[in-house]
């Protein structure tokens, strides 16, 4: 399945597509308002980019510094080369505490590792506590956005899900009341949980602590009530100094949702008296990406989601059409690193308009990397034959002025004469499915130029 074939299911509902498009554009506009209110915002982007680049350039050293500090703080540090090892480590910690009730706050990494099915398969109850994540967990769906996991759903969908699973009144789709129902339902889970799993937004090498940003407070509530905290982080989450958080906390929420900061910016450095804290440091393909000079900048990503909110393709095709943990433009440059064949259509799910690059708070050259992946994919023979041959043909055609001149003439006549059924035959011309052909001009520019100027 390609991105476009999966997107076809999404765009089949035109009203929903429009609504999705407008909702995300609204988030993008909120981002702009928040960003323009900070005069030094562009300086902050540059600083964030430089800090991340520097960290990557000394990644092995910072990882060791972080580990040593964390251990000194009484934190258990684990290393996982891949998803499987990560899941085994987490299960092992849970088992050693004879625990069966686990709450989890938002973590794209555990999503990437498919931790939930692994734990559930071993008899552990895992409850996602972020409201959006809980909604999609109940529906057995994947998140469709980095920070707005249930953005593909309408309140009626959530109402129906809660009626089914939480016993809310049928037909009640008031966000306020649904949120209250989730609050009551999840509170019971928080109070009963023995282990809390969380993601990590930033890991500070200087202090050995991790920082988690949420609006709901679900990470804090879960972690601070449970006996054991397990924080899973990719190796790219590191920043060198505590003061670097000044830069990143000013960028993250403004870029993500247009808020000046997330409600909770929580710093976990040492376990509470009598409790346990574990940090699992995960590679899962990241060091490989680090070794690709053209694509390593993707490791600077702070998962704000701004690039998807602004992307004209993402907004109209929905997160599920990417079929990868991280959707949107950044997902399209991370995914080929994991599986070139499976995700070969994603770098083409872009207009290369560059809007993603413009909004990225850490200045990743996203659209340039998309373009580079296309070249890698073409070289590896991973693009569909039709695309390959038509591009080859177009290349030759555009390189020859003579062929171009004749071609133009043919097209101008053809556009007038060809029957609609033929130009819009779905089998031949997918482009025309939602488009009309232009009114053909009577003469070409060259003909006009020859007549007027010479």
């Amino acid at each position: 399945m390609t991105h476009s074939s999966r997107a076809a299911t999404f765009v089949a509902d035109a009203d929903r597509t429009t609504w999705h498009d407008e909702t995300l554009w609204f988030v993008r506009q909120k981002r702009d308002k928040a960003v323009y209110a900070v005069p030094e915002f562009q300086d902050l982007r540059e600083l964030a980019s430089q800090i991340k680049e520097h960290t990557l350039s000394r990644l092995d050293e910072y990882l060791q510094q972080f580990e040593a500090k964390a251990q000194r703080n009484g934190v258990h540090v684990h290393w996982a080369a891949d998803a499987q090892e990560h899941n085994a480590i987490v299960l092992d910690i849970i088992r050693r505490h004879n625990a069966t009730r686990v709450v989890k706050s938002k973590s794209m990494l555990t999503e990437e590792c498919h931790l939930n099915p692994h734990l559930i398969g071993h008899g552990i109850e895992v409850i996602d506590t972020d409201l959006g994540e809980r909604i999609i967990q109940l529906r057995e769906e994947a998140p469709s956005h980095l920070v707005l996991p249930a953005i593909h759903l309408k309140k009626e969908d959530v109402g129906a899900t809660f009626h089914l699973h939480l016993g809310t009144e049928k037909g009640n789709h008031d966000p306020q009341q649904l949120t209250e129902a989730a609050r009551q339902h999840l509170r019971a889970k928080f109070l009963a949980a023995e282990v809390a799993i969380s993601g990590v937004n930033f890991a500070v090498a200087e202090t050995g602590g991790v920082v988690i940003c949420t609006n709901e407070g679900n990470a804090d509530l879960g972690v601070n009530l449970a006996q054991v905290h397990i924080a899973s982080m990719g190796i790219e989450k590191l920043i060198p100094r505590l003061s670097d958080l000044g830069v990143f906390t000013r960028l993250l929420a403004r870029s993500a949702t247009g808020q000046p900061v997330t409600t909770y910016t929580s710093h976990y450095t040492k376990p509470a008296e009598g409790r346990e804290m574990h940090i699992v440091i995960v590679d899962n393909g990241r060091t490989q990406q680090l070794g690709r000079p053209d694509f390593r900048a993707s490791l600077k990503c702070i998962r704000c989601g701004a690039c998807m909110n602004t992307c004209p393709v993402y907004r109209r095709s929905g997160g599920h059409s990417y079929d990868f943990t991280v959707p949107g433009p950044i997902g399209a440059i991370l995914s080929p690193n994991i599986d070139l064949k499976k995700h070969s259509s994603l770098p083409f799910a872009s207009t290369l308009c560059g809007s993603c690059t413009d909004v990225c708070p850490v200045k990743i050259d996203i659209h340039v990397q998309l373009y580079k992946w296309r070249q890698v994919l073409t070289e590896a023979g991973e693009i569909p034959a039709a695309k390959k041959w038509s591009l080859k043909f177009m290349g030759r055609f555009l390189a020859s002025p003579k062929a171009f001149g004749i071609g133009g003439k043919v097209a101008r006549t053809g556009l007038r004469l060809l029957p609609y059924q033929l130009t819009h035959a779905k089998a031949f011309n997918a482009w025309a499915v939602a488009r009309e052909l232009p009114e053909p001009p009577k003469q070409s520019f060259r003909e006009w130029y020859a007549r007027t100027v010479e």
Partner: protein
Amino acid sequence: MSSSRERILAAAQANKPAETPLPTVPDFGGDASVERFTEVLGSIGGRVVWVANPQQLGPVLRQLFPDAQRTASPLLAATVPVNEQTPTDVLADVDLAVLPGEIGVAENGAIWLPEVNMLHRALPTVTQHLVLVLDHRRIVATMHQAYAQLPSTGGYGAFVAGPSKTADIEQSLVIGAHGARSLVVLLY
């Protein structure tokens, strides 16, 4: 030492790019006024109330939270004694927590709340309503200035900016997701 650790570190070392410098982050200055702090906190769902005498919070709190039965606080005579050992079921019944905040940030309405001020780490989020008491002279302009004032982040600590909230259902803002349903800052 696990072999994965060695493998990851070796791969990071082998694949990392040539070293680039770590930039110095300037202090960008900015507006550290009480007015700015009040306005921004209001825009994110919090509220500033001035108190004349921080030693006498009782009357103000009774007026703001007439229904609060179970209060926890190191600042006044509270009804629920809370410390690090307090069991979950006791914490879960707290209506109102009144805690001292350390630093206010004008650009985003956040307040630094270190572990030592919390009685129990879960109290600021498990309570139904949260009140933070802050000296108005401790307001700074930006997060850079706030971090510059932190000697360390202790074992645990959080910047709290407004009440718990979510917009996960159709982007409709709902206050009171899992943490405190309201946040009042008592400034003195």
